[in-house]
């Protein structure tokens, strides 16, 4: 291919699609290269779509996008590994009113839909092609990409790296280091099919309404991690993720954790009889602000997962991906309009735009959390199990007086964690999350 483009986008996930769409719509010549058979076939997410980030790009997406259910209820469950589960839920049927702020989606369908828009906007999208490296000139400026295809070098004035969490292209070019095991969570997930009516009965929801269940506690066997159960239209997504360094330490396989979650008595009746149609896995970069690589340089920008833009605390990623992809594109559009070159100095406007957005503000807010959880993994295990035992004690009416029950609970708590230890946990928790 001898053609030269203004911009090449590597990858067709939310970040790459947001970037390619924004660029193409502004009349910039764009080549987007995706390694999957079609966009979406390599992409894995829970998946929750937050409307705001997509709305900025495509205001009336609700009319056309393949959305599963809008969320009206969020349950937070603290489980022990055996039989108990404490939880809170927030249900708001007001969430049924348009515009809905979040939806469950099936990524293979959603990404394909988004990619069709990218194509319609005028970008050239090539599937089934893996980018193997970056082309650079004598000064080190990125001038294009190398693909595995014969004669597969393509030139561009700028390359947007949106190749996902493993970020191989950026790594190979020395633009970033590999993600580290102690900064990464591995999540595994199954898609379980169940008739629509049965889902609505079991979860107490109406047509189009959805429930999100986030699960923490001993279900991760003391490792830092969480589980989830989401309702799609006629399927459920169930998954669990833990820090990779914890899996190593405990020698527990990810599929054993998932099986433990599926068999938990609070989950089992909800998924009973469902047909498992897919098993997927995905790494999540949890290093947060302190682990971010450099996000731009001469002729290149990094967006989404490949840049580590993940808010692990709030389980957000695809919205940060879409926003960063859009901001990268807008930076290039603005420079092109001014006739300015895509130098590192000029592309620093992308970083400034990110800094001014919720993306960096949120990452900065929780900058201390990854270290806190790494150093205090017990907070996710000990407290939920204490809460469950306290609930069991108080809810068991057996003729024992309540003050005695209260003393038992306090004794149980002190045995697990000293008063000073708890105060320390509370202080460190507050410092990390404030």
């Amino acid at each position, binding site marked *: 291919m001898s053609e030269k483009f203004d911009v090449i986008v590597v990858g067709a996930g939310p970040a790459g699609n947001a970037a390619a769409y924004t660029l193409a719509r502004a009349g910039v010549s764009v080549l987007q290269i995706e*390694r999957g058979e079609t966009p979406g076939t390599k992409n894995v997410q829970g998946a929750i779509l937050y409307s705001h980030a997509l709305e900025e790009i495509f205001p009336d997406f609700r009319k056309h996008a393949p959305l599963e259910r809008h969320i009206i209820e969020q349950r937070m469950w603290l489980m022990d590994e055996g039989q108990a589960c404490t939880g809170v839920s927030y249900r708001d049927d007001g969430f049924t009113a348009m515009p809905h702020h979040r939806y469950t989606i099936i*990524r*293979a369908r959603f990404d394909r839909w988004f990619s069709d828009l990218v194509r319609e906007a005028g970008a050239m999208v090539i599937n*089934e092609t893996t980018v193997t490296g970056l082309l650079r000139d004598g000064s080190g400026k990125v001038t294009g990409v190398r693909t595995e295809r014969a004669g597969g070098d393509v030139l561009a004035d700028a390359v947007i790296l949106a190749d996902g969490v493993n970020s191989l292209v950026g790594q190979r070019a020395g633009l970033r280091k590999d993600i580290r095991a102690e900064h990464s969570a591995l999540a595994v997930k199954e898609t379980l099919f169940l008739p629509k009516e049965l889902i609505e009965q079991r979860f107490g929801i109406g047509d189009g309404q959805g429930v999100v269940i986030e699960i923490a506690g001993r279900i991760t066997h003391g490792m830092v991690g969480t589980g989830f159960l989401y309702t799609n239209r006629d*399927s459920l997504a169930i998954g669990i993720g833990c820090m*990779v360094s914890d899996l190593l330490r405990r020698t*527990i396989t990810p599929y054993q954790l998932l099986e433990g979650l599926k068999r938990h008595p609070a989950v089992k009746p909800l998924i009973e009889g469902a047909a498992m149609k897919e098993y*997927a896995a995905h790494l999540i970069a949890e290093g947060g602000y302190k682990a971010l690589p450099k996000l731009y340089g001469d002729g290149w920008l990094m967006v989404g997962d490949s840049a580590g833009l993940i808010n692990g605390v709030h389980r957000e990623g695809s919205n940060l991906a879409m926003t960063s992809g859009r901001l990268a594109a807008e930076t290039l559009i603005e420079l092109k309009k001014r006739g300015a070159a895509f130098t590192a100095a000029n592309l620093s406007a992308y970083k400034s735009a990110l800094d001014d957005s919720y993306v960096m503000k949120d990452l900065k807010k929780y900058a201390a959390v990854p270290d806190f959880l790494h150093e205090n993994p017990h907070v996710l295990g000990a407290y939920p199990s204490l809460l469950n035992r306290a609930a069991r004690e108080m809810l068991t009416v057996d003729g024992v007086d309540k003050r005695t029950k209260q003393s038992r609970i306090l004794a149980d708590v002190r045995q697990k964690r000293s008063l000073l230890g708890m105060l320390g946990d509370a202080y460190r928790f507050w410092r990390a999350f404030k």
Partner: protein
Amino acid sequence: MTASSLPVVNVEEKLFQNRYRVDAGRPHIRIRQQATCGRCETKPCIVCCPAGCWRLEDGGVDLVVDGCLECGTCRIVCAPGNVDWNYPRGGFGVLFKFG
């Protein structure tokens, strides 16, 4: 609960539900030096691989990438950097129906 009381899971049954286009004879992940795996005491790849692609064999490690979910975990857990990890050729590997 201890690790020993965890459920026994046949991960191959799960993988059977997935769609793959295997690039026969061109595995996208390779072991750089077999001897390095032989000397490795912890063999984290075997524990962490969500698809069970890494197996213990004769004290060493055997890798079959056909069921790979392309997550990248084996690469990041290998302290000596003995995993030569690449994306499969375009169009090959796992093809998620739902993702």
